[in-house]
């Protein structure tokens, strides 16, 4: 093993094949690694696109879902709410009547409306409770108008109208 001694690596045929296979596997793994990296970049790009889409959709939904008039009049829901609120508050319902009213202008548009006209009697705390119940379970576009309260035989006789509006058909 002196100077000038040549080292010869003698590989058997099997060993040659094993070495070549290992090199091939390394090349394949390298290729796959590059492909993976590319996919990761593409994935990030898609994520960004998806985020943008989600934001756009959110904005649209937000603009469409803002507080606005319902698309359909409440119908019986309103009269049911009025009657139930009066009953649960202890008021005596003398008359209650529901009807659709001619479209009414609110702001810049004309909206369909439903009106509940009712007449009730009871004590003042019952009146207050009645309004409280109405407000808690109110239909979104509901307003209470034209109230009249008269003290008759120490009971309040109250007439009022409850309107609810919906978008134009």
């Amino acid at each position: 093993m002196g100077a000038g001694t040549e080292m010869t690596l003698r590989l058997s045929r099997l060993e040659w094949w094993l070495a070549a296979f290992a090199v091939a596997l390394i090349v394949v793994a390298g290729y796959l690694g590059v492909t993976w990296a590319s996919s990761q970049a593409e994935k990030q790009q898609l994520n960004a696109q998806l985020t943008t889409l989600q934001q756009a959709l959110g904005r649209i939904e937000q603009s469409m879902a803002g507080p606005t008039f319902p698309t359909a009049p409440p119908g019986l829901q309103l009269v049911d709410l009025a009657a139930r609120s009066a009953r649960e508050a202890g008021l005596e319902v003398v008359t209650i009547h529901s009807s659709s009213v001619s479209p009414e202008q609110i702001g810049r548009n004309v909206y369909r409306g439903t009106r509940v006209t009712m007449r009730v009697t009871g004590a003042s705390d019952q009146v207050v409770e009645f309004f409280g119940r109405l407000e808690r379970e109110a239909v979104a576009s509901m307003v209470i108008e034209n109230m009249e309260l008269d003290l008759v035989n120490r009971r309040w006789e109250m007439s009022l109208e409850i309107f609810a509006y919906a978008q134009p058909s």
Partner: protein
Amino acid sequence: MTIGLLLVVLGCVLLAYAAAWLTLYSRNEVSAKEAQVKQGEEVVQRAVAAYSNSVGVAKAAEFREDFRLLRERQLRWSDVFHALLDAPDGMAVDSVTQAGFTITVSGRANDNAIATDYLTRLQNSGLFAQSAIQIDRDLSLPLIQPGTPSPTNSPAGLPFVPTRSPTTAPPVALPPTATQPPAPPPSPTFTPAAPALTQTLSPTRTPPTTITATKTATPTPEFDYALVVRRSTFIDRSDTQASRIRGAILDENGKWIQGVAFRIESEGSPSWSAGGPQQPDKRDGTVEFAVSKGSFRVWPLVEGRVQIATSIYTGRNEDPGMYEWELVWRKTHPGGSLASGSPTLTPTITRTPIPSATPIRAGRNVATLGSASASAGQDSAQRAIDGNVETVWQSGEYVPPPQYILITLNDVYRVDGIEMVVAQAPAGKVTHEIWVGKDAPNTKLVEFADYPGQDGQTIAYPFDARDIKYVLIRTTRSPSFVAWREIRIFEQLPPPLSTPTFTRTPTVTNTATPCPAPACTPTPTATRTRTPTVTQSPTPTFTSTLTPTITQTFTSTRTPTNTPTVTRTPTFTPEPGTLPPSPFTGVGPRNTPPFQVYTCPWKLKYQAMWNGVFKVYLESNSQSVLVIDRTDVQAGVVYDDLRYETGPRYFRVASADPTREWTLWVVEISSTCALTPVPTVTPTPTRTPCPDICPTSVQFGPSNDSAPLAFDLPAELRHLTRSLVRLVGEPAGALAAPAAQTPPTGSAGGPVVFRLVLEVKHGRGY
């Protein structure tokens, strides 16, 4: 060596496997993301399409803005009524009414302090933006005992049971309080009574009068309900954006008509409208609208020709303070009957389905010149415009509303009124819409919503003249099939060159002519040689086929009797008309009530209480003439001017100091119109055809507080108004303090009635 290589190969295999797995996993992830992105894109596209196609971006924004306005009306009434109905000891609330943001509370208290304390407590509740109180002493009221049972704390669902026996606290009898309808004005200001005559009357007996009803035309009032009070009050408050417009309506006797709904619309943009309460204020029929700054038009929803109150200007957003308005309409004549003192005329009436209080308009009915078509019942459509109320168009019994009839005129006409004679069985509430247009019926003129319809009734709608060729009447609600007996469309009359007059045979004898001296010089048993037959030019045709409403221009409140009388010799005979019920007074820009001026030149005087610009227009529906144009008006100086305009008019003060008063009044008719009558004796006494207000030498001076004004509010309402004006906006302390020092009525203690007007702060939604 071989083993080492095997290990290396094994490692490379593992590495390759891992790389392959990662790559495949990433591929899958990317595929999934791509699918998500694609799906997201589709969703966004659909959302955008739906957003654009359904209501549109701008429309959706409008809806949201409108909804914001609606939410302002969503008030916390539970809090409001909790505050209102929780009355302290010694006080009772009798009634509460609400219209819009305004609440009126009527009640009584043992003394002034309790009532003002109640107001103070309400003000401190933070629920109300403004408040005002009127307190009147009423010693006839019994004291309210502390602890008087109040209608509270009833078990839910059970009838109210007083918490204290009536024997310990007897029920308080409801007194005549401010809730009672105010008495009508002591004397109708609409037709001021002529001054009493002081001349000695001739004892000459005159034979009975033969009344000859040779009437050819009857000038009818322009409106069935004329706007007689139009008063604005400037509220100098910078912290409020809400004003009030109050409306009330009187019958021909000056009594309040209750139960009338009102309509209000904004003028300009944004358009807004609302209806008055179904049940107006019970006390005096007044309906109140809480409005923002802007310009509005208001009218009562009554059958007949109603004068619309236009240009109700409450203020500009840029300017501090607001104007509040009082509007009062008055029925101008009893429906279908002659005015007092009129001869009995027998007009030819073709048919009167139901006597309507609606006179026919003066213009020509051009509907008969057109053609009619309908949504159903086309065969009979023409019957609605054939001039015969006996013939009917009907949509058919099995064709429910909505139905319409379209009338196409043969040309474009300037139209100022539409009348419809109802065919309906059974009677009931209906909703009619009138659409008009020049090229198509594309403009909704008016809607009569929930109108109580009955067969034979006449629905009339006057409006500012406009060019119209198409009229579509659409019925959207009716208990009956849709039908009309007649539809009339009235062409606007051209401005008359002379006021309509009629041939008049001396008919009525009265004890005294309503002309005061010195204009009418009494001449015993004299009559005019001049036959007051004036041919009008042009001749308005008053073709009344439906309503026998014949109202004389020469109305008099006196009862004609065949007694010895004096026929006065007029110094002139003016053409029919009325002098403006001047003086008109006001503050700032405003309109005066309408009036009719003569063909003769008439003198206008005016006075302004400031130095500066004063511009006044004399307007009718179609004309506007600048009659006062002074840039150098001096405070307190009376100016005069001779005018020649005729016809129904009103003054519009366009430029005036918004804080100081002006006065306009018409003092005389020009002497150029004077006749030179030659009195001769005649067996037939003749009444000088003086109009409602005698034409000559009726001196109207500037107004003062003590003198009642023509077209003024009844005293009760005026008092209330002044009280409100005085108290509105005063803080609680400031309100209570002056009340304690110089209370209007209740200073000495004792029971009081009060009326509280509150404006609720805007809501923010439920």
